[in-house]
Each structure stands twice: as structure tokens, then as C-alpha cells.
């Protein structure tokens, strides 16, 4: 990394956009502007501008793809409107949906993390163990240590996969739980 910085490559803005595009494409996971800047030995501001340019380019030319920000990084993905044709092509069916119980449990964990099983029970009014198992299996939640109370129960929180699967940049992008109060009444 240091080498790259010392080299100080001279690139035109268009070249930087092209490079950023290529790196986002080859990465298996969303890439942050920070990592891109480090690898390219470029200023983070310049990289951010290049990413913004790229996002706009894809948007403008009505591409079948989009550059989107998710789980703290940028990723190339198909446009949602095309899902039917893509499913027909890949011969995949919509993935198994989460049950109401799992979704509720996930909502409690997302908003109250780190949270223990008894605390989830308290809010949902029902045992959530099988939902927790499902969420762990799907890697949507992870164990986050133990709570220093009687019995030292395990605490749970959401994972990076949660951000990815729900298309969130980070946890702050979740609407505040109090916002749902208005809907209720």
C-alpha cells in the first residue's frame, strides 16, 4: 500500500472512474471508498467523486446494472425491474421467505442489539428459539458475547449479511423504532 502511495500515479478522472468500476466488479463483496483509495494510492475524495460519477453514468445510460451502496461499500447489481427475466434465465425461484416469527425476532434484534433471548421473549411475548436458530443458520444474526447478569446469557446482534440481504448501507439507515409508533395509532 505504501508503495502505491509513494508512486502517486497520475490518472485522469475518467481513468480513475474506469479503475473504480473494474475493482468494484472484481470484488466479491461491497468495497468501501477507503479501501479503493488505499489500493489505488489516491485521495479518498477523488475516489468518492469517481464512484459518484460511476453511479450517475450507469443511471443515465439506462443500464441493466446499477452501482449501489450497501453494507458499507459499493457493489454492482442488476436493476430490480429486471428480476423476472433474470429469474427465468437463472431458473431460480424467489428465495424462501422468512416467517413472521423470524422477521419479528430479527426486528427486535436489529433494534435492541445486543439483546438476549429473555429480552426478546419479553417483547414478543413468545419463545423465539427456533426463529433465532433460523436467523443464525441464515447468518443474519451473530452471537455478540454474554450479558453480565445472572446466568450470563448470550447476546445477539445483526451481521454484515443482514445489511447485505436487506440492502442497508449501515444500521443507522434503519428507520427509528419510534417512527413506527405513529403508524400504530
Amino acid at each position: 500500500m505504501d508503495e502505491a502511495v509513494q508512486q502517486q500515479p497520475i490518472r485522469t478522472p475518467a481513468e480513475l472512474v474506469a479503475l473504480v468500476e473494474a475493482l468494484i466488479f472484481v470484488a466479491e463483496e461491497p468495497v468501501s471508498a477507503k479501501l479503493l483509495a488505499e489500493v489505488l494510492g489516491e485521495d479518498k475524495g477523488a475516489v468518492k467523486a469517481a464512484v459518484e460519477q460511476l453511479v450517475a453514468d450507469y443511471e443515465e445510460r439506462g443500464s441493466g446494472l446499477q452501482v449501489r451502496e450497501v453494507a458499507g461499500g459499493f457493489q454492482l447489481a442488476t436493476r430490480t425491474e429486471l428480476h423476472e427475466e433474470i429469474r427465468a434465465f437463472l431458473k431460480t425461484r424467489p428465495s424462501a421467505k422468512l416467517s413472521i416469527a423470524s422477521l419479528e425476532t430479527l426486528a427486535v434484534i436489529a433494534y435492541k442489539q445486543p439483546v438476549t433471548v429473555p429480552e426478546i421473549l419479553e417483547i414478543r411475548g413468545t419463545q423465539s428459539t427456533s426463529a433465532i436458530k433460523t436467523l443464525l443458520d441464515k447468518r443474519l444474526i451473530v452471537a455478540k458475547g454474554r450479558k453480565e447478569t445472572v446466568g450470563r446469557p448470550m447476546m445477539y446482534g445483526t451481521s454484515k449479511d443482514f445489511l447485505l440481504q436487506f440492502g442497508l448501507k449501515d444500521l443507522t439507515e434503519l428507520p427509528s423504532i419510534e417512527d413506527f409508533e405513529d403508524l400504530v395509532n
Partner: protein
Amino acid sequence: MVEFIRLPINNFAIYNLQSKVLDQNVDQFSFDFHREQAEILRGGDELKVKIGDFAGPLDLLLFLIKQEQANIFDIPIAKITEKYLEYIRLMKKLDIAVAADFLVMAATLIEIKSKMLLPRDPRAEESEEEFDDPRRELVDRLLEYEKFKSAAGMLHERSEIEAATFTRGPIESDENNAEVDASVFDLLTIFQKIAARHAEDVKMEIEREEVSLADMIKSLKKRIFEFGEVSLLAFFEEMHNRRELVTAFIAVLEIVRTDDVKLTQASTFGDIVLKKV
């Protein structure tokens, strides 16, 4: 006998019942639960009953309150309790296991109902505000729960949108290996699997015959002099259990001590090779 199809968010479930149940008594399914009556759908020799599917007792309670168009801050507790118990009775009739949490809530409702029937303390009546409503705690819980239920709906919508976007297919630079990103949960489940696998091995061990040290030395010597060298790793891997492994290990020590054989290792943690000198 009951096939349970969960349809998230829509809040109802379809139960497939054998015709046997159908013949018994159709009346028992005339349950006023969903927006209309519980739907009974006939198809071949199957009967499907569509009734409310609830994620928990609070979910059911909220549904009943809405169905009765009641004010959540002034729940008609007698009526709601009656409806609640009706649902549980239906579940039992359909032979669907009723979770203990639902029964606990039923008890709570009955308790609140009886408290509401008690005459109020005349001294407390002076100020209406201080009257401790037996429903208060339940209402608080319902309000709190409903926020998370709405949040669950939001998550559901997000996941629907997300399921409609696809990322690229594999490309050359992806290392195609079966590597996994692990969490502590994975560590535990993997450990349990290994332990289970091991338990099976132990059972099989009993049936095996034991190899004596003399036989082990003989067979190892034969191999060394036949092939010139023997990989210790390969040799040890042939062992079926701990006892055999220990015997094999002692055999190696014996051979190195008494015969013209040396041990060589190319790198730390690398394989060790037994060589004829």
C-alpha cells in the same frame, strides 16, 4: 395430518386436513377469524382450512382488538378474552399444538377480566387518574410489541426489493474453493458434529481386532525395506483408532532405535519420512 403453510405478513395460514377430519364435523371450522369466515376449501380428498396464523399471543391479541374495532387504550377485556379462548379451542380441535405462551396469555386475560369485575376501592375513586387499571401493563406491552411488528413488516418489504437484485456470476479471479466465513455459532455446531461423528466411531471400534506391537513393527519394517522410505503421515493415517495409533507410534520409535532407519522432516509441521540408511 396437518400441513401448515406459513404465509408471512398476510397473517393467515392454510391447513390441509385429511378427509377423515372433514367427515367428522364441518361445523367446527365455521370460525369467524379472518376478515370473513374461516375459508374451507375442498380439493380432492383434502380439506383446507384457512385461519389466522399468529406469530405469538400478542400478535393474536392485536388482531382480535382490530377485528372488534376496539380502542387499544380501552380494551373490552371480556369480549376479547372470549374471542381469544375461542381461537385456542379451535386450534386444539384442529389438533394443532398450542404453544405454552398462548396459554399463559389466556391466563393473564382471565386474571385481568376478574380484576375488572372487582368493585373499585371507594377511596381511590376520588381521583380517576390514580385508578390502577389492570389492563395497563398489557396495553404497554401491546404498544411496544406493535412497533416491532411494524418494523418486521418494513424488513419484509426491504428483503423483497433486495431479492429482486442480483450480483454478478462467478468470474476467473474468484478463488473457487469451499471456504467459509465462520462465526462462533459455526464453531459450536461444527464441534457438536465432530463429537457426534466421534461417538459413532467409538461404537465401531469395539468390533475391530487389535494389532500387536510385534505385528506392527514387522509390517512397518517390511514396508521400509520394500519401498526405501515410508511417510509417517500416510502410515499413521492408516490407523483406525487411538490404540492402533499408539502402537504404530511405539513401533516407529522401536525401529528407529534398533534398525538402520532415520527420520527426516523437510519443514516444520511438514511430513516426517522414515528412510532406510
